[in-house]
């Protein structure tokens, strides 16, 4: 199960990267990146998962004393949460840029934005 998720995550990452680097429309690139980010999140969660344990939430079901053996390592999940938020930030920024770029040139074709080169 972990492997399935992990493989799915990697496939999503690769598909996302492929999409981002082959679609010339800027919005579609951003969409592809968001797919890749989802893939990363899946990988992160899958790596942290230990079979048969519960969520790292201390409640009645999981006494504090047994927490260490009964819950999943909370660190990766904390990482994913942070990553999702940061990912949102970056995606938003990219979208803002996309809009700005569209304003400047009236196009979203990435190939049109290559005055700076060499």
């Amino acid at each position, binding site marked *: *199960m972990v492997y*399935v*998720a992990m*493989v*799915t995550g990697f*496939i*999503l990452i690769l*598909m*996302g990267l*492929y*999409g981002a680097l082959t*679609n*010339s*429309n800027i*919005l*579609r690139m*951003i*969409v*592809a990146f*968001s*797919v890749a*980010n*989802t*893939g990363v*999140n*899946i990988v992160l*969660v*899958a790596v*942290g*998962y230990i079979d048969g*344990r*519960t*969520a*790292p*939430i201390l409640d009645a079901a999981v006494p504090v004393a047994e927490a260490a053996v009964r819950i*999943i390592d909370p660190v990766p*999940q904390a990482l*994913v*949460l942070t990553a*999702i*938020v940061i*990912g*949102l930030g970056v*995606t*938003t920024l990219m*979208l803002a840029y*996309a*809009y700005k770029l*569209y304003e400047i040139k*009236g*196009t*979203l*074709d990435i190939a049109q934005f290559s005055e700076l080169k060499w």
Partner: protein
Amino acid sequence: MIDLMLLVTIFFAIAMIGAALVAIRVKQISIAMLAAGLVSLLASVMFLFFAAPDVAMTEAAIGSGLTTFLFFFVLGRVRGDQRD
């Protein structure tokens, strides 16, 4: 039980990959955005299986909700260039 989980996971995985394929290949950009949101949504369900309910909630809210909204927001403002 575990096998069932596995099957469900595999199902979700295939669904996600399919949605992702749509997201990066489909002609219509709005459909691509929806598909990306779908990938995110499916992922958040999957997180539940992996005992990560808070991640699932965040992913559902931010990944599939807010991000998709933002996509459409920007798309609405740049209408006109809908070619691939």
